């Protein structure tokens, strides 16, 4: 019995090389489709995961000020009112915004240097992070993108133009590491006093408040308690996370849909090839049945063929998709996936290969291929062998 199946296996492997054109067409079409689908899926999940990590580190609540429907600086005295709300652990005022250099926009962060944790220093490649005595001195720590763009290093001075077209001179005291680039590439971190000066933020106002709630409280409940405050908008982590997932998911979804359509096309090509070859192999099937092959034996042969072809093409496609996304930063694809965003060459695209993605890709490639190969084989196999050989000869 085992010997019979071994022989059937050997015969089906032999068929793979005998019907070379069919094998090549199926492999190429499935290879292209699975490479693109896997690159999109792996990248989309990587971006979602990175966003999730950052959102988890974000404040429990972000309080902004609305004026005529637009975000405006929030009065500093709101901090005291918010701090008195039940469940609020701390309220951190922030001043941050954007600065343009060339065609790029960088994120300028003003930090209260007296509150910076020591562990933050691990993200620095050269120089040092800000210290409490850097407040108001114009010292900054910059990311790899701006360092590369301006060709600056620790110890150099840079001049940034503010919105009011005034030149502001800053001294670079630290450079963020490559490893932290996914978060820091576009950052210019300075003391909150320097940021106030740079943005010409009026005294008594800040950009927004980072609010941290007590461990026993739900941020959403605390946010509800703040609803009495006029002109504020309160964003919680869950809302931000869903926003990011929607942003990356929506674009990724479009491409997965497109490439799934291509996969269906590839399955149709496989079906067409199987029918054509099925026509050619009618004589062969008739001969095999005359020699004593059963219908099940012939289906087994074709099943093994399609499994080998399916797993070969799909696995190779996924390996190539992974290399394309993880090592080559998915050129051509990433621009569309990120929308208007761009990816600084200073860091690699975050790629996450989940079991769900891997098995989904196998499911949408191998199973349709099996069906489209086995069905024509079954139709051939149930035909009377003599009739099949006569038709093939004719």
């Amino acid at each position: 019995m085992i010997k019979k199946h071994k022989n059937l296996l050997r015969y089906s492997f032999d068929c793979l090389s005998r019907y070379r054109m069919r094998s090549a067409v199926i492999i190429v079409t499935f290879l292209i489709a699975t490479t693109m689908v896997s690159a999109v899926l792996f990248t989309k999940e990587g971006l979602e995961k990175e966003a999730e990590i950052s959102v988890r580190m974000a404040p429990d609540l972000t309080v902004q000020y609305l004026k005529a429907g637009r975000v405006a600086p929030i009065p500093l005295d709101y901090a005291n009112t918010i701090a008195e709300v039940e469940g609020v652990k701390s309220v951190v005022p922030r001043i941050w915004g954007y600065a343009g250099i060339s065609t790029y926009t960088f994120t300028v962060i003003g930090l209260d240097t007296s509150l910076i944790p020591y562990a933050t220093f691990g993200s620095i490649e050269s120089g040092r992070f800000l210290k409490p005595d850097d407040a108001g001195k114009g010292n900054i720590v910059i990311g790899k993108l701006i360092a590369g763009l301006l060709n600056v290093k620790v110890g150099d001075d840079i001049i940034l133009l503010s919105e009011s077209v005034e030149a502001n001179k800053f001294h670079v005291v630290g450079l963020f590491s490559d490893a932290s680039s996914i978060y820091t590439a576009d950052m210019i971190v300075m003391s909150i006093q320097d940021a106030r000066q740079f943005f010409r933020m009026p005294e008594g106002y800040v950009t927004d408040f980072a609010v941290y709630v007590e461990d026993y409280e739900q941020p959403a409940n605390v946010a509800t308690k703040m609803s009495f405050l006029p002109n504020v908008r309160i964003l919680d982590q869950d809302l931000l996370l869903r926003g990011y997932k929607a942003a990356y998911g929506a674009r990724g979804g479009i491409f997965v849909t497109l490439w799934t359509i291509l996969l269906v096309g590839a399955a149709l090509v496989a079906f067409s090839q199987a029918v054509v070859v099925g026509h050619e192999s009618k004589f062969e099937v008739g001969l095999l049945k005359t020699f004593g092959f059963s219908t099940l034996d012939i289906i087994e042969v074709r099943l093994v063929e399609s499994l080998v072809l399916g797993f070969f093409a799909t696995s190779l496609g996924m390996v190539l998709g992974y290399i394309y996304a993880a090592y080559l930063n998915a050129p051509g694809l990433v621009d569309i996936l990120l929308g208007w965003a761009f990816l600084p060459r200073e860091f690699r695209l975050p790629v996450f290969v989940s079991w769900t993605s891997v098995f989904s890709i196998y499911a949408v490639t191998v199973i349709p291929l099996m069906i489209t190969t086995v069905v024509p084989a079954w139709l051939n196999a149930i035909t009377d062998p003599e009739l099949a050989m006569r038709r093939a000869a004719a």
Partner: protein
Amino acid sequence: MRKIYLMPIMAIILTCTVMVICVTNQASWQNREYYNDLRYAIGLPSIAIGTNYEGTRNPLLEVFVRSLYDIPGGYDYVVPSSFIDTPLKLKEYYESVPGFNITIRRS
């Protein structure tokens, strides 16, 4: 080894490679240095992509691009729509944002 065994063996090797990539990739995410203290200190929710567009590191609404950059008579639907399809259809956009002025939303 006979030539006919080449493709089946390659199929098995490649499938195992995919499994290995999956395991090692997930392990690398678990062992990665996220610089949590830095992210906690800075507190921005986004990663550093999209730095040529000023909205991408701003909380929520600015993620959905310039929804507050309204033009006289109505919000700019074109720009957010070009970013992620039509954000006004997303419930995250209009259901859970306290204070978001949605009074001129189209019916």
